[in-house]
């Protein structure tokens, strides 16, 4: 197995086409999509950059949080009265309409907090793909990061020459 090095090229955000073309050419040079990563200061859809669809479990995590919130609300509404039953004449033991309010609020709280936790968890979870950063990205540049076998580097560099990218030295992420 040959050694790989992480490389990064930058384009101003006005040169979006060149960035997309770079990704295309890297693929032609045999670099797998998993070894390519794009970093940018504004969001671009996968379609614009010609990248495979990204996925996230945030929706699922949010849904799971909503279920937990619903379960807590149900136990507060219908479980706690059993712990110390106080029966009041003419009043139902489990009043449904008033319980709906608590159920709604806690379900939404569960959904929203877990969505945020989802972002947090996915952020700190180790991810595949090359790591690297350049502060120029937040100043309006698009960075294409890729891991490339060292013996292929010259060939790749030559292949991207006409796109006039800015090569970043030592792109390893240091924030």
């Amino acid at each position, binding site marked *: 197995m040959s050694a790989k090095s992480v490389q990064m090229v930058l384009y101003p*955000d006005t040169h979006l086409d060149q960035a997309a073309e770079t990704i295309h050419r890297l693929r032609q040079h045999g670099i797998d999509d998993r070894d390519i*990563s*794009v*970093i*940018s*200061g*504004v*969001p*671009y*859809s*996968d379609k*614009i*950059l010609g*990248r495979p669809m*990204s*996925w*996230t479990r*945030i*929706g699922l995590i*949010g849904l799971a949080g909503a279920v937990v919130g619903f379960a807590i609300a149900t136990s*507060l*509404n219908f479980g*706690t*009265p059993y*712990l*110390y039953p106080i029966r009041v004449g003419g009043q139902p033991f489990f*009043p449904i309409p*008033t*319980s709906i*309010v*608590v159920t*709604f*609020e*806690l379900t*939404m*709280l569960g*959904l*929203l*907090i877990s*969505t*945020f936790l*989802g*972002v*947090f968890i*996915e*952020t*700190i979870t180790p*991810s595949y*793909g090359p790591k690297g*950063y350049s*502060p120029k*990205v*937040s*100043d*309006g540049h698009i960075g294409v990061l890729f891991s490339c076998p060292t013996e292929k580097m010259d060939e790749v560099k030559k292949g991207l020459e006409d796109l006039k990218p800015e090569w970043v030295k030592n792109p390893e*992420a240091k*924030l």
Partner: protein
Amino acid sequence: MAAETKTLSATHSASQEGEDLRQEHLMHDPKPREEMNGMVMEAMQTTSKKYWIALAIFGLGVLILLFGFWGNQIITGMGVTGKRRPVFWALYITTFVFWIGISHAGTFVSAILRVFKAEFRRPFTRAAELMTTFGLAAGALFPLIHLGRVWTFYWMIPYPNARWLWPNFRSPLVWDFLAITTYLLSSTIYLYLPLIPDLAMARDRSTGWRHSIYKLLALNWRGTEAEWHRLRKAINIFAFAIIPVMFSVHTIVSWDFAVSQTVGWHSTIFGPYFIIGAILSGVSAVVMILFIIQSTMKNMKYFIRLEVFDSLGKLVLIFSMAWAYFFFNEYLLHWYGGYQAVRDLLTFHAQGPTAWVWYTMLICNVAIPWLTLWNRKIRRTPLAMFIITTLVNVGMFAERYTIIPLTLGEQRFPFDWGAYSPRLTDISIVIGTFCLFIFLYLLASRLIPLIPVWEVQEGQMAHSTRKLGKGKVTSVAELE
């Protein structure tokens, strides 16, 4: 010669058209990202002597008017306030409803306009979201202040006491607690999520303690596809989910009143009536804040343009009309109901010694916006908009004052009638929360990028003009 003249004038008018469009719309006047970042950072890092004086004054206001008087109230007892039988819900609850109403604007402006893809929202969503968070922080103090024996506040938290008695979840006061907690947490997160890329920008452009704080808060943001994808997904979930939460909060606040048998409160339309009022006062407060930001902070004239005041002016006008509709609906049906106590109350509001409050409400909420905001020129004059929206908020405060102490003083039995006069403690604490709101906002304006630069740039990239017939029209691309 004639043909030449025509061509020249056509060229001139086309370039003029382009210039007008640039001046008018931020989305058509792009600057390089680096320059926009620099402008936002400069606004954040510039602090004049005036700023520090204002910060000190409002900080002192918080210390003395809010915590000083509140501390005295805790030590001395509720007798230092003007609350007396029969008016036990007075200025504190009035101000509580007012702040919760103000807090609706952030969600309304940010979430609803985001869902409907209203492009003019882009430069000021964060200013509005900050208002929500700080408005809630100020409002959430009032149930505690109103409680008197504040050390027992934890009885509302759902856990059993020594006798295994749980809080009564059927009580609207527990609903209030849950709704406000949910809204405060979710709106704070909703403020934070779109802030992450801007915090990363600030991290890249700062040093020292600022860098350390931004680095921590930016969660190692680099702007990868995966990060953007999950951020967008989370923002979308929040934008859709926070809207019903927003509606629920003020509906529940209205139920604090409507579920009782109190004359003037027991109404089926109190929920939507309160929500419309909240949005009216909230959007008006956004205009006030934007005027202050635009006129006091560096570089903000580029981001906050007349189009923003124009669009928000239209919204204020629409919500003023909606508020008038709900008010009239509520008034007419109460009056037609023929219940003597209700009629007496309505007569008292309009003709009693405090009728000036009722008329202030109608003049500020209806007459002033209707007479002014139809006019484009007025909507595009920031100072005029500031004055009008301040008056709308005065009107909305008067509305809450009419609904709460002025209604409670005039109930079914004449022997139980009474008037409420706020005392120094009531007034100071209320002013203290205004100081708290301004103090927090002043601090945040120097710590948080008030303009969501990435959203502005995204909008500018999506906007272009294309020729249609003989004119140029705006075209917005779908980048998501």
